[in-house]
C-alpha cells in the first residue's frame, strides 16, 4: 500500500499531498516527520538522488527535483525498492509536464496537470501506470494504448 505521496517546497511547505489508508489524526505527524526528514537530509542532494528512511514497518523514499522535494511512503509490498520505482515514475512525469526539473514557480504553473498525472500514477494506494507516454495520453483523455 502506498500510504502517502507528498510534494513540498524547499521551505517545507506542502504543495500536494495524497494519503491513502492513513487516519486523519496521523497525517499531521507524517507531514512534520517527512518535512523534518527532508530538512535534515536533503541539503545538497542531487536531483533525483534517492534517500531512504523507515519507521516501524513503513518505508519512506524521498528525493529532490528542482525546487521541489518529493516523499513517498509505503508499506508491505511497497518497500524501499518498490517506492523507488514509484518515485521514479513520479519524477519522470513531473519532468515531462514541466519540461525540466521544476522551479517552484513552474511547478505551481503546472499544478493541475501534475495532479492529473499523480491521479494516473497512484490510484487508491497502488501504483498504476508507469510509462511516461501512457501517463501523458491518459491525462489528455486518450486511451492507454492509441489506435
Amino acid at each position, binding site marked *: 500500500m502506498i500510504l502517502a505521496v507528498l510534494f513540498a517546497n524547499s521551505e517545507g511547505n506542502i504543495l500536494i499531498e495524497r494519503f491513502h489508508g492513513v487516519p486523519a489524526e*496521523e*497525517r499531521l505527524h507524517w507531514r*512534520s516527520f517527512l518535512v523534518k526528514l527532508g530538512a535534515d537530509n536533503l541539503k545538497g542532494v542531487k536531483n533525483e538522488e*534517492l534517500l531512504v528512511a523507515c519507521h516501524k514497518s*513503513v518505508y519512506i523514499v524521498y528525493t529532490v527535483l528542482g525546487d521541489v522535494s518529493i516523499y513517498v511512503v509505503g508499506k508491505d509490498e511497497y518497500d524501499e525498492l518498490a517506492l523507488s520505482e514509484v518515485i521514479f515514475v513520479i519524477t519522470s512525469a513531473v519532468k515531462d509536464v514541466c519540461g525540466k526539473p521544476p522551479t517552484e514557480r513552474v511547478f505551481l504553473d503546472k499544478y493541475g496537470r501534475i*495532479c492529473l498525472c499523480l491521479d494516473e500514477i497512484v490510484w487508491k494506494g497502488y*501504483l498504476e501506470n508507469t510509462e511516461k507516454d501512457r501517463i501523458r495520453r491518459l491525462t489528455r483523455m486518450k486511451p492507454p*494504448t492509441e489506435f
Partner: protein
Amino acid sequence: MADSAGTTLMDLITADPTTASTASASNSAPSSAAAAPATQPTALGKPAGEKKSKRASLMQIQNDTISAAKAALNPVRTNIMPQKQKKKPVSYSQLARSIHELAATSDQKRSQRQLVHHVFPKLAVYNSVDPSLAPSLLMLNQQCEDRSVLRYVYYYLARILSDTGTQGLSTGGGIPTPNWDALADIDAVGGVTRADVVPRIVEQLTAEAKNADVEFHARRLQSLKALTYAPSTNSEVLSRLYEIVFGILEKVGDAPHKRKKGIIGSKGGDRESIIRSNLQYAALSALRRLPLDPGNPAFLHRAVQGISFADPVAVRHGLEIVSELAAKDPYAVAMALGKHVQPGGALLDVLHLHDVLARVSLARLCHTISRARVLDDRPDIRSQFNSVLYQLLLDPSERVCFEAILCVLGKYDNTERTEERAAGWYRLTREILKLPEVLGKEGSKDKSQKNKRPQPLIKLVMRRLESSFRSFSRPVLHAAARVVHEMGKSRAAAFALGLQDVDEGVPVNTFAEAAELHDSDESAHPESIRRTSSISNGTGGRDTIASLLASLMEVVRTTVACECVYVRAMVIKALIWMQSPIDSFDELESIIASELSDPAWPAALLNDILLTLHARFKASPDMAVTLLEIARIFATKVPGKVDADVLQLLWKTCLVGAGPDGKHKALEAVTIVLDLPPPQPGSMLGLTSVDRVSASDPKSALALQRLVQAAVWFLGENANYAASEYAWESATPPGTALMMLDADKMVAAASSRNPTLAGALTRLQRCAFSGSWEIRIIAAQALTTMAIRSGEPFRLQIYEFLHALAQGGLQSQFSDMHLSNGEDQGASGTGLGVLLSPMIRVLDEMYRAQDDLIKEIRNHDNAKKEWSDDELKKLYETHERLLDLVSLFCYVPRAKYLPLGPISCLASCVWGVPLGGNPFNVSFLDPKGLGHGMVQRILSLSEGIALRVKTIRDILCAKLVDVYRTRHNISVSTGLSDPAVATGISDLVYESKPAPAEPDTLDDDLVNAWAANLGDDGLWGNNAPAMNRVNEFLAGAGTDAPEVDDEHIISRPSVSYDDMWAKTLLESSELEEDDARSLGSSSPDSTGSVETSISSHFGGMSYPSLFSSKPTTYGASQTMEKEPANRGGPSIYESLVSPIREETSSYSSPGMQRFESFENPLAGRGSQSFGSQDDEQVSSGNMRFGTALYDFTAGGEDELNLTAGEEVEIEYEVDGWFYVKKKRPGRDGKMAGLVPVLYVDQS
C-alpha cells in the same frame, strides 16, 4: 514559515504570478483576506493561535460558498475573472462561481481555456470538492467536448465520490475546506449535499462505463476509473462496479488473446485488439480496487485470465489479485492456474515482463503455492511453482530478487512461525537452482550454458547481496541490509530449533553434487529438505556456508560507513541478527560503540535497535548476556536517547532468560555501568571506548544519572533472584550469623556462599557512598531490599553497613572507593541518616523479635512450660506486624516470608490460617508431627470443633525444642511416635490438596518456560507501553505516524513499569495460587524481581518515565482495610515531581514526614499506604505544572478559559495545544480543556 506557505500556494490561485507574493502578503483586498491564512494548516510548525485563523478562514469559505450558490441561482452573465482582478488571489467563491458560469457556456473555446488553465488547476488546491459543484460538473461532462476539460471533470467527480464527507477530510490535501454537507444543511438558500449528488454522479458514470461506442472508448475508461473512487462502504456502487467489470470481461476477456513475444505493452496491432486490450486493462484495474471475493470462481477466473492479457499493467493487476487469493485458497488458485505455470505458460512469460511489481507478485504467488500444505499430494505443482520462484532469484531487478530471497527464507508477512523460518534457512543453504530445460534450449549462447549449471541458492544469493552492497543507491543498501536481517532471523530460527545439519562448515557444492545424483526427484518434495544433507565429505578449498557468510558479513560491516543513518541502523540490526551465540561479538560491540558516538542518530532509531535486541533475545535466549553487553553500550553511550522502559524490559527479560548459569553474568552486564568512572563533562576522549560513559551535555548527563539510578534499583530488586538467595529458603539458620559477629568473617562467609550476591552487595555499598544524592538514596533502598530478602549472613552484613552509614565513621574504611562528587555530605557522612533510620529500625525489630522468640523458646523449654494460647497469639501478631512492616520496603511473598526466622513458621501456621493460603506449603516443616498439628488446627477451626490445644502444644513444644536441640547439637530424640497421629496425617494429606512437589527441582525449567512465554502468557500485562512497543515491533505492525518530538525524555508519556509487575505479580491472590501450585522455591514470579513499594514510591521522585505511573495497584492491595491515608499536609510527591528541581530544601522535609509516620508502626498503619497516599499526585509523576500568562477565551467546546496567573496542571500537549486541568473550576464550571501552548508558562 507559515506565511510563506500561504504565499506559495496562494501564488497558484493568483492569476498573475509576478505579483503574487506581495498580493497575498499584504492581503490588501479585504474580501480575499481570509484566504491567505487558510493555507496555513498545511504548513508546519504552525503557531498556537492558528486555530483561530483557520476557523475564520473556514467561515470565509462558507460565506463564499453561500454567495457562490446564490450567484449560481441568479446567474450574472459577467466574466467573473476580469482583468483587473488578476493581481489578487482568487477566492473560493470566485472559483466556484466561474465553474457554474463556464459550464453554461462550455461550448465556447474561451470558456474551455478558462476552465483548463485557470479554474480547474486552482480548484485542485483545495482539499475537497464542494458537492454543490457537481451539477455543473455533470453538465460539463455531458455537454463539453474538450478532452482536457473532461479529464478534469472526471478527476473532480472522482474526488467528490471518494470524499468520506464526514469531516470534509479527503485525501486531497491542500487548503482545508469546510464540511460541505454541514454547510449545506445550515444554508438557507438550499445547499447541495453529497447525498444529493452522489447518486446522480454514479448514475451518469455507470451509464458511460457501459457505453460500448468506440468513439466513447477513452471516456468509458475514465468513467470506470472514477467510479472506483467511491468508498468501499458504498455497497450499491460496489455491486454496480462488479456488474460493469464482469460485463466488460465477459466480452473481452475470453477473446483469443494469446499474446506474442514482444507485443506486451507495445504499440501497434489492429484497432480492435487494442480496444480490447484497453478495456481489459480498465476492467482489471477496477477489479484490483474492488474488495477480494475469495469464494467466487468468476473472480478468480477473470484474475487468472488477466495474467495473459496484453496490457502489462493488466497483467500486474491480475497477478496481484491471484497472489492475494492464493494466500486464502492456494488449492483453488493452483488449479485455476493450471497450465500457466508450465513451460511456455503465461506465468513464465511474466518472468520477462518489464514490470517490477508484476514479478514481485509472481514471487509471492509462487511462494504461497509452493509452501501450501493443501497441495501436499500434488508435489509436481508445488515444485513447478518452486522452480519459478528460484528463477526469480536471477531477476535483474533488486526488488524482485530480494522478494524471492525473502520468500525462500520463509518470510512472507510477519506471521510466520519459527518452523517456517527455520525451514527457510535450510532451503537457502541446501537447495540448488536448476534452470528448466526450456530456458536452456532458447539459445546456445555460452551464457545460458553457464547458467544452466546447477547452482546452490546460497551462492547465488550471497553473490547478489554482495553486489547490492556495492551499490550507491541508499534504498538498495537499505533493502539489502534488510534482507540480511531477515536471513539472520531465519538462521536464528534454524539454530533455535536445532535443525539437524546446520553445520555451516560443510562445502556448499557438496549439496549441488548430491542434488545431481538425485536428479529424478529433484525438488519434487520441496519440504523434504534434508535429503541431501547426509553427504558431507567436502574437502578444503571449497566454499562453505560459513565462509560465504563471513565474506558477506564483511561487506555488510563496511556498509556501516553509509552516510544515511537509516541504512546504518538496518545494518546494525542485520549484524545483531546474524550474530550467533558462539561468535565473538567484539567487532559488533566496537561497531555499535563507534556508531553511537555519532550525534546524528535519532532516538527513535536507537530504540528500534534496542527492540531488535529484545527480539533477538526472544529468538535465542542463550544470547542474553551478549545482548545485555550490547544494551550496556546504549546505556552508557546514549543515555539521553534510549527509552529507559525498553532498556529495563530488556534487562529483565535477559536476566530471566540467562538461565541459572548466566544469571550472574547477566547481572554483571547490567550493573557494570555502576563501575564506570563518572562522565567528564566536555571530554571527548575515549568516545569509542565502551568502558567510558559519554554524557557531554547536561541533558544526557541527567539521563545517565537516571539510568544509573535505574541500574541501582534493578540491582536491588533482582540481586536476590540472580543469586538465588532468599531468606525464606535460606539453608543457614538465622542464629548462625548472630554468632559470628566478626565482620571480616562474615564477609568471607558471604562471598564464599554466594559470590553473586556478595558482588552486588559490594557494588551497592559503594553506590551508597559515592553516588550522587539520588543514587545514594536508591542504593540504600536497594540494600534494604536485599537485607530483607536475603538470609544470613547477608542480612546482618547489610544491617551493620547501614548502621555505619547512618552514623558515619565507616567512611574511612571505604575511603579508597570514595569519589567525592563535590557535595557536602553532611554530618552523617552520607546525608542519608534520616532516610536510613526507618530501614535500620525494621531490621532492628526483626532481630529483636527473633531474639525474643528464641528467648521465649528457651524459657518454655527450661521451665517445661506449655505455650499458652495467648503466647502463641502474641507470636502470630508479631509475625504479622513485622510482615506488614517489611512489605513497606519491598515485595516479599507473604505466604513464605518469616520475619521471625524459620522457627516462627510454626506459630504462624498454627495461628495464621489465612496467612498464606496453603499451610502445607511450608516445605521445611517436619511432617512427622507438625503437619498433623496444623491439619488439626485447620480442621478444628473450620468445623468449629474446639481445638485440642493440648496436642498442638505438645507438638509445638516438641518442634521448638527440636529446633533448639538441633542447633545445639544435642542428640536427644523426642520424636512423636503416636501411630494415630501418623496415620491421621496421611489420611488428611491425601484427602486434601496434594502436597507440594519438591520445590527445589522445578527451578530451571520454570524459569525457562516463563522466559519463553514472556510475550504471550499475560504475565507482562498488556497495558505496559514498553511491552506494547516490543510486541508491535515484533509483529512488524504499525503504520502509526512517527513521533517527531520523541527527543524530549522528560515529557515522555508515563510508563507503568510497575503496573506491569504489580498487576500480574503482586496481587496476593495470585501469589497464593502460585503457592498452592507450589511454583517452586525460586520461581521468578514469586520472587524474581518484583516492583516494590519503595521503587514505586521512588517513582514519584526521580523516574519520570521509569516507575512513575501508578503504584496504587500494589498499595491498594496492601492497604485495603487500613485507615485512609493522611490526605492533609504537603504532599511529598508534589515537591519531588521534577527531578531537575532544586532538591536541597525539599529533601529533608519529605523524608521526615515519611519517617514520622513510621515512628509508630501500629498506630500509624496509615503510613503503610504511603505508596498509595495520594493516587492522583503519585500518578501525576509526569504531570507538568504551569501558570497562565495571559487571559484566554475559549473559542470552542474543547477549549478552556484561562485567567492570567491561574495555575494549571498540564496533562499533555497536542499540536501546539496543552490539555490542562485547573485546580478549581472556572466561572464556566469547566475544569479541563485545551489552551494554546504559548499561553502557559511551564514551571
